[in-house]
């Protein structure tokens, strides 16, 4: 049975009447036309669908939209401040940390969530955290360099 859900996405309020079991990922993509979050595994273990919910990273591919009711969602589209990229986005650009780029939005949002939680992560903490995100092009060295660059930028 459809219910009305209030989604606050990238600072914008949306009222959506839909089946509450639908996945947040699908609602973002199909109803709000925010296609930056990607489907990857459907199990919440590859990170392609990562979005931030009240600043915490969540796998939108396993999150029923009802759970996002009245929560603040940030997707990759909402990360830049107008034309000014987020420092993590800048770091990914600087390190050219994308091959195909399909994992990139999820990687960036994961790194943002890490820095919000722990502004000075050690290398081990970075690896532990980022291990939830898969890059099938296996551009891991470049992505790691980007996350490290973002960490040092945050320190300054």
């Amino acid at each position, binding site marked *: 049975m459809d219910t009305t859900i209030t989604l606050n996405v990238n600072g914008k309020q949306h009222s959506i009447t839909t089946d509450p079991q639908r996945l947040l990922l699908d609602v973002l*993509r199909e109803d709000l036309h925010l296609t930056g979050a990607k489907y990857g595994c459907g199990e919440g273990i590859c990170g392609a669908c990562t979005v931030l919910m009240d600043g915490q990273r969540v796998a939108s591919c396993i999150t029923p939209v009802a759970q996002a009711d009245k929560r603040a969602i940030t997707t990759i589209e909402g990360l830049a401040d107008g034309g000014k990229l987020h420092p993590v986005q800048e770091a990914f650009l600087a390190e050219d940390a994308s*091959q195909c780029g399909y994992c990139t939005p999820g990687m960036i949002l994961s790194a943002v969530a890490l820095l919000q939680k722990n502004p000075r992560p050690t290398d081990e903490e970075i*690896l532990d955290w980022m291990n939830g*995100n898969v890059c099938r092009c296996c551009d891991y060295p470049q992505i790691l360099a980007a996350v490290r660059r973002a960490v040092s930028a945050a320190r300054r």
Partner: protein
Amino acid sequence: MTPERLSEQSFDSEGEESVEEMHYHFNVDRRGFIQLLGAGVLITVTGGAAEAQRRGPGGAGSGRRQTVSSRVHIAKDGLITVMTGKIEAGQGARAELTQSAAEELRVPADRVRMVMGDTALCPDDGTTAGSQTTPRTVPVIRAAAAAARNLLVALACDRWKVDRAAVEVRDGVITNPATKQTITYADLAQTEDLAKAFEQAIPSDVAVTPVKEWKVLGTPLARPNRRDLVTGAHRFAADTERPNLLYGKALRPPSYGATLTSINLDAAKAMKDVVAVRDGDFVGCAAPTTFRAEQALQAVAATAKWESAPHPSSKELFAYLKQQSQSPGKDERVEEALAKAGKVLRETYHVAYVQHAPLEPHCAVAEWNDGSVTLWISTRGPFGTQSEIARSLRLASDRVHVIMPDMGGGFGGKQVALVGVEAARLAQAAGRPVSVRWTREEEFTWALCRPAAVIEIAAGLDAKGALVGWNFININSGGAAIDSPYNVPAKRSRSIGSKSPLRQGSYRALAATANNFARECMMDELAAAAGADPLAFRLAHIDNDRLRTVLETAAKRFGWDARKKKRDPNTGVGLACGTEKGSYVAACVEIGVDRKAGKIEIRHVCEVFECGAILNPGNLLSQVHGCIIMGLGPALREEMIFESGKILNAAFSKYLVPRFKDVPPLDIHLLNRPDLPSAGGGETPIIAIAPAIANAVFAATGARVRTMPIRVAAKEVA
């Protein structure tokens, strides 16, 4: 729906790859179809005619020369657009081709925009496969851009009535230093003259810039559209927005080979805004949300009756492939050499099926207008897809427009148009655009696998420990890099077919990984049998300087001699080398083995790669990284497990691809050879890692592992 196998294997002329074709049997007599299209446009095109049509003037199959305008367009604001039928899959074609055009046009790379993989706008450059973009398409784009520059210069010289030698070209500005006159490409684009000039054919003998004068090529240009990747603005095929878009799902058989005997669509059709279709062996549903499309499909699936077919399991796979294999024949000279050899080794190697598992699954959006269909689809072959869609839906190919937005990874997969056929057929029935994106489970189950292999080698040594005979048979996985690069007086390598239980197709480096795995493991075994060092044994049998150089360089950087002598407990070093598609690779690794847990830890990888003149060192390094790390998956863990026609590990939670924590310390060295033609670099760097690890396992444990994935069973250790 049971996409069937047309033939065991077909070979793509571009990439020498085996692609198993899959298609649906749609009902020929389709009232709805004719209603939608209008009877007058229901055209059936034979393969030959369709082929001729799609190639068109200047296509890959055409003898006619392409015009400059088919490749290069200069806008009045000076923006240069360059067109290619090749596609970007993350391998760096967009950057490399941008550099190629910019170099020859004497402009900075940011002035060039590549339009790729759009059948309405681009010439057919063949499937993006087999590392062919670098050796085949880069020269085509360079020639087109050089021809365009020559025409621009000629126009300026005509205007100024000076000789071509009198002018200089820099940053899109043509200058006559004597008179200080200047004119820009944009200025020339204002006139009709340029458009007319660009209608000329690209001369076959157009001179391109020598390597030593390169300013843009040879530099690490990052991917031109990377900003859209970090902002989420890039639209992958499944991100395509169309008005009134529906989301579609196709019904899959419960097991391989199962055929549909009956089904009832009523429950799905009763659901609000749901379109349900059965056409021949295709069944699918489309709805305004993925959620409802899934509900509709489940309702339909609940009524389906299937007839299953027997199917071998992965446990008996290798015996099955061997049993179903064609005859390898005999080579008398090789048999004789082996009979005379002092020592003969006969070993069998196995390589499991693996999936590409690109993070972006197969996906397509289809939209019909006036009897023509437009597809946004993740495919490596836009023109092949165009023909396949046309054939499946019985359309003239000029009624199929394929657009390939830069894709989310391919790795040799995504070579069939099945998902596009599904989207197109549903969109046709719905009268609205439809998006189909396979689930991860569908991707693991229905995408083509890298072929499994059984490889049998017999090799003979003489009394001095020199190789005298070599007989190499690959069953099922193909002939890429099958010929031994080693010097053997009597050698023979052959690839023979079998009956593949799973659908199989090309994968990054094709069979070169399997063949090099078996060969390089055997070379190690032979070295041991000859009492020789694995490095020295290989070098003694290598004539090719390029192969020798990468191997020697890798061994030196790694410190092979010293590290081999160390003999730390449960630690081993191994090496392997190989060549394929005009490039050369060697890898040395150090591993640790936890004998109790049966775990292999990769402690260090040193790889040296050489592919001629390097076009883009930054991208090449990423490709080599990617190959090695991706290659660790099938080397150590990845394999398709199946039983009774069902894939048992069709999920990322059960099929473990490499992650951040799996990345070993890497020392990668790219050897640049500006004196040699550039070869592609996205495949060959994958072929050395697995055998180097297997050889290191032997060094650490004294036990040979002859199967990929390489495992050390805990129980084997006393």
